[in-house]
Each structure stands twice: as structure tokens, then as C-alpha cells.
């Protein structure tokens, strides 16, 4: 399958925890970029990046929204780094039932970081651009991959979580009913 190898740009955001001042500008910029219309509102509750804070323990961790999972994980390790305690959740960007991070506050649907994909593309994701202390930095690297992954849209991700919750049939029934009533 050598011929199937393709070069792919992998986008990464590096986090330097020591540099985070906890200002949450990343959350604000993210929510503005993803508002529709773009920049029409800011609301950190809708952001796909969050600064997890435990101020009295000097823990400041910006994490990006990752995948949705219907179940919470069973392992809850506590790590001690430089005399500071971090739980596994401090570093985890998964939208899971154990907490209300990375869920649309109105619908409860999961949110996921898309690295600010835009047309024309941004030089860097907006959270990185606004992070003046450089706690967030953007790196691109090339990687060879077997096949281009099928990119899933936001709607598909959202629908999948609905399907997990209610079953696919119920969603199809609902969509059918909605389109009927719209026609009527």
C-alpha cells in the first residue's frame, strides 16, 4: 500500500503551563470565532478551550475540547508534578458525562476544537493568537498517513451523540415528523 501514503499536515497547540496567567482570553476568542455570525457574541461557556483552574493549588491548565464520549472513564489518577496535584480531568479535553465541560450550554451537545479552520485559513488558531504570555503556541508538522481520513462535520458529530442517547430510529422519526409538519 505504499502508493496510498499521503503527506498530511498535523496541527498542534503546545501548552506551557508555567506561562498561563489565567486571563481566559483564549476562551473569549474561541467563543467569538465560533459564534454565528462570526464574532457576534462572546460567551466562554461556549468555548472549545477552557482554562482549568485550581487557584489555591496554583493549577492553571488550558485544555482544548476533544472527542465526545458517552461514558465517563473509570480511572481517576491524581498526578503530582512540581508539588502540585493534577487530576486526570485537568488534562482531559473529552466531552463526557462526568462534567459539563465542552457542551453547548443550551442543547448539551458536545463541542470540539476544529483548530479554527476557516476560508481563507487563519495563520494560527485564534486562541494562540490572543495568548500574549505564549502559554499556547502553534506548531505544524508533516506526517505520512495511509489514507485521508474522512472528515466529519459538526452536524454529524452532534447527530451521533443524539443517536447514542435516543437511538437512530427515534431521530429519523423525529426528522420525518418535523419535515411533515413544516410542509403542512
Amino acid at each position, binding site marked *: 500500500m505504499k502508493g496510498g501514503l499521503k503527506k498530511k499536515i498535523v496541527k498542534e497547540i503546545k501548552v506551557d503551563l508555567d506561562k498561563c496567567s489565567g486571563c481566559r482570553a483564549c476562551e473569549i476568542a474561541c467563543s467569538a470565532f465560533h459564534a454565528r455570525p462570526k464574532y457576534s457574541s462572546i460567551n466562554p*461557556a461556549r468555548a472549545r478551550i477552557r482554562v482549568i483552574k485550581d487557584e*489555591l493549588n496554583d493549577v492553571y491548565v488550558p485544555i482544548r475540547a476533544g472527542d465526545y464520549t458517552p461514558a465517563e472513564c473509570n480511572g481517576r489518577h491524581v498526578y503530582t508534578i512540581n508539588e502540585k496535584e493534577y487530576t486526570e480531568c485537568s488534562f482531559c479535553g473529552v466531552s463526557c458525562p462526568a462534567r459539563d465541560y465542552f457542551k453547548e450550554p443550551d442543547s448539551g451537545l458536545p463541542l470540539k476544537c476544529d483548530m479554527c479552520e476557516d476560508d481563507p485559513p487563519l495563520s494560527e488558531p485564534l486562541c494562540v493568537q*490572543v495568548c500574549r504570555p505564549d502559554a499556547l503556541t502553534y506548531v505544524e508538522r508533516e506526517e505520512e498517513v495511509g489514507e485521508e481520513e474522512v472528515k466529519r462535520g459538526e452536524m454529524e458529530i452532534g447527530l451521533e451523540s443524539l443517536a447514542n442517547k435516543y437511538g437512530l430510529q427515534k431521530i429519523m422519526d423525529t426528522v420525518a415528523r418535523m419535515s411533515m409538519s413544516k410542509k403542512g
Partner: protein
Amino acid sequence: MRYAETGFNLEIDLTRGNIERVETDPRLTELHLGGQGTAGKILWDRVPPEVEPFSPNNLLIFSTGLLLSTPVPGANRSVVDTFSPQTNFYSHSLFGGFFGPELKHAGYDKIVIRGKSPSLVYLWINNDKVEIRDAGHLQGKGALETGALIQEELKEEKAQVAAIGLAGENRVYMATIEHSNSSASRGVGVIMGDKRLKAIAVRGTKDINIARPAELFEICNRQYQEIYDNPYCGDIFLHEDDESWHVDNFAWGNARGRVKGYWNKEREDKWAGITRKVGVRWTSCYNCPKDCHLGISYPKRHKYFMKCYSKLTYAMAAYQELDFNYDILGVTQEYGLDGFSTPQVLAFAIELYEAGILTDKDLPGFPSDTAERFFWLVERIVRREGIGDALANGVYWAARQIGKGAEEFDHNTMKKFEQVPLKLGMINYPYFLMYATGEKMNITQIEGSYPQVPIADKEEREEFVKNWDAAPDRFKKWFLEWEPRQHQSIEAAVNICDWNETMHYIDDAIGTCAFLSSFRGQFGGRPPYHIYNLPNFVSLATGMDLDTDGLWEIARRNRNLIRALNVRRGLRRSDEKPPADHWKKRDPEMETKLLDAYYEFRGWNNEGIPTKETLDKLGLDYVSKDFVQRGILTDNEGTPSKETSAEKGKN
């Protein structure tokens, strides 16, 4: 549609346990913006002068500035307003952090608290769901510790909490309200404690409407970079290791005198070493690229955040080294004690002991070491134990309760309130006016736009003025003419006082931080926010049609309304004087002229009372009517015209 604001206040009656969400009048936003301005209107309407500060009818108002939760960088200040038992006047404080923006996203511009709870409670605001919850288990807990315990108990780590410590619970007059990396100082915690309200926790996830969001976002992005790059804003001093400005210019002990030759390179290195050892992180407030609050982890103390000049206030009051200051802040911050006034109260007590006014009978077991004495006194003050009961009322009242000549040692209060410990030589005209007439009780809340000292070199001065975008032209002229060791004219002094105050009244209404605006013009002359660019931020956020004159007019209205609150409670010309020994050389004749000129400039009568004409022109005719009814103004004072708005309605 309401823009930049939610249009709703939360009304809490702690006596009856009643909670209401009340829609506000959009016209008040046009007249007063928000924050301190609209809070002043509520205090005027609902707290008549007969209401004692400790009455259940006194209000405690938490306000968000108008621009909070918009993209405007550094607009994150919450305002706390009430009436103070220490001064019996209007009491005003501010704090940054994250509380205000969260409250706005929960759907409220203000929390208006009245009544008194029968037992210690806390308030939990989670969007539309608001509960008054038992706080019995939090009694005696530290202020920041309380925040962490509430987050844990609610399983809501994103809740923002403002809380009092033991000092507030025991109604100590120097009590603060603590939140995250910020403190509301100047004694507002005493009323929160009196109402038996230990804390307020808030979580909000709603959107805020912005009138012209894309345009606002665009200029805010640029402003964010400008603030980050601007070396003249933020807490410049706290980032420096060279403390010569404070230790050489500010007074030590109970605001007594300077210590000459204290500062040297050796001490600077030593102190810098201490700060590196205990400082863990420079932190920011919400949506601000400056990092003004240093997280401190001192051995065996709770972690806390150091802000501003509290880095030195305890050390200088006790004639100790910096290490002592970091140590005692670890205690006082958790008790929720004001880092400006408390050290003076402690130093005052030690002076009384040394003078034989307080004896071993009053202070049984009083240690011999000054540092230990400070810790000893703090424990008694926050519990109001023994002598601590009198000291907990601040220097002015404690001096009178203790008697035996203690009054002589109360020399740094003004309007019964502890002032920044400064003892200077020659009277300074604009500063005389700011001290004497300010409603905000501390010079740091009044000064800040016009430089404190002239620039000696003429070319440098011209260069400064050329880049001085923040200043109206008349100030450029006055500054160009200002030579070292020279007084400025009465006219200049009056205008400088007005401009300095105006910028604070704007910040305190819209929530922009004084470190980016009203306090930061005086060094470098390049505050990121000023009278010429602020109207655009406000207009784009709110949809209001606002220009520089319009913004100045609103600040004038708010300034007069706040003045009226104090006038109605008895404030008169005789109260308007700085601490007696603030300047060694006074000039009574000139001071009279200055005060006369300032009152005239403001449209106030000879007693410092806004005239009917002044009030009516600002749309405050309900104030002038009240003044006439109460006999504070007579009908023929201030040459009222028949054309004024107050009269229009009747004809």
C-alpha cells in the same frame, strides 16, 4: 433589545429569604451607564439618610460595569456600594477577577441585597436558579478557602465566588470581600458580614447582546495588543524589585515619618530573592493581558494573591523587612482584612502602648517583638476580643473609645477613614482638592490622569505633551508651563481635579480597570483607555450615540449624584479637609480660595452642595426637589429658573 447589559437585577431580601429578578429601566443606562452610576441611583431612591449603615434597610449592591462580558479588554471590574459604619457616608469599592463577567452571563447586571439573614448564609446563583443556602459550616473559614469549599460542595469548579473572612463575619470595619486574585477593600466587607452573608457564588452561561459586535471585536483585538505592549499600564510597581519609590516616599509606622537611606542595592537584591522564593505565578483578571496579581505561597500559610502596594504596607507599618509582609499577608488575606487601613490600625495600637495609653492590663500577654505584636493584634481584632473590639472600628473610632489622649494619635484619617500613609512638605493644589472633596475615601480612587510631578527638561516635556493623546488641550498647555517646585494656577488645579475624578467615574461605571485607564495616565501619559477612545468602545457595545462630551457629562451626573448621597447624610464644607499633617506647610488662605473655586466650577454652593440649577441641568431634578424639601437647599439658592425640568411637569 438591551445591548451590553442584561437589563435585569437580582433583588435579594435576606430577612425574608425573598429572591426576585427585576427588569431595569433602559433610560437609566443612558443617564448613568452602569456600575457605580446606576448603583448610586438605587441608593438614592431606596436608602434615605435616616437609615443607619447597620440597619437591615441599608443596601449592599454588587454591580457589574456596563462593558463587562463584552470583548473590551480589561473590562472586568465589579463595584460594591453601600453605606459605611465607619464614615456614615457612601462606601465604594471595586474588585477585578472573574466574578462580574460570570454574573452578567448568569443574566444579571446587579445583585441588590437588603435585610439581614437570621443565620450565616451564602447565595448560589446558577443562571435562573438562585438559592440562599446555609453557611453554618463555613463560619470562621478563610475568604479564599470558602470559595474553594463552595465550589467543591456545589460540584461546580467554574462557579466564581466572592466571600468574606472572619473579619467580615465579626463586622470589623476594615473587612474586605475577597474573590480569586482580587479584593474589594475600603471596608465593604463589614456590611456583608452584618447581613450574615458569607459568600456569593455565581455561574452563568448565557449570551450578552452586543450592538455592533464584529466592529467591536476588531478594535478590541487591536486594543488587546496595545495593552500588552504598553509599558505604562498594569501594576508597574509591583513588577519591579526597586522599591525606592515606596520606601523612600511613604511614611512608616502609623503614617509617622520617612526612613532616610533605607534603600540600597543590597536590600534590593535581598528582597528580590524573597519575592522569587515565595512568588509562584503572575496572574491576570478576566480578558486582560496584564498580570498584576502575584500568587504567593509562603511556608505554612494559605496561598494568596498579592496586589498593589499591600506588598509593603505591613512591613513599613511595623518597621520590618519584606519577609514579614509576605508572612502576615498570608494571615490577613484569609481573614479578609484591608491591606491599606489594617497596618495603620496595628501601628496605631503599638504607638498607644509605647505612649502608656494602652497598658499591659489592656493587652495581657502582649509580646515584646513588633512583628509578633502585629500577629497578636490581628487575632484580637478579627475576633473583636479585648482591645481588638475597639481597634476593629478603625483608628478614628478606636481613638475615641480608648480616650486618654489617644485622639492625638489619630492623625492620618480623613472623614474618619484611614488614608494612604504619605507625609509631604509643601501643599499641592490639585491634591488638596482631590483629598478634600473626593467621595471615594482614598486618593488612589481619585488621582491618576494628570502627572504628579512636572518634567524638568523642557524638550522632554514638549515630547511628552506631543504624545499625550489622552489629555484635553488645556492640560497640555498647563503641563508645558509647569516648572519644578512651582504651584499651578487655581484654574489648573480645579480642572486637574475634575479630569482625574471624571476618569474614575467613567471606569467605575463601565468596569474598565483603573490600571489601564484612570490611574495610569499620571506616569508616562499613555493610558490605553482615555476620554477620547472610550466613547467608541461604549457606543459599539451598547448602541448608544456617545462622544467625548457626552461621556464627560454622564461622569459629571454620576459625580453629582454620589455627592448628593453624602450631602443628604450631612456632608458639608467643614468635613472637606485632608489629614492635618499631610503637608507640613499649609496655606489656609489659599485652601479657602481653592475650595471656593472648585465648588464654583462644579456648580456647588459655598457649603459644597450642588445647586438646584446644577442638579436640574444634569437631569437630577428629583435630587434638588428632595434637597429643597429637606431644607438642604432653600428655594432661592442657585438661582433656579422656571424653565428647569423639575418645574416643567407641574405646569
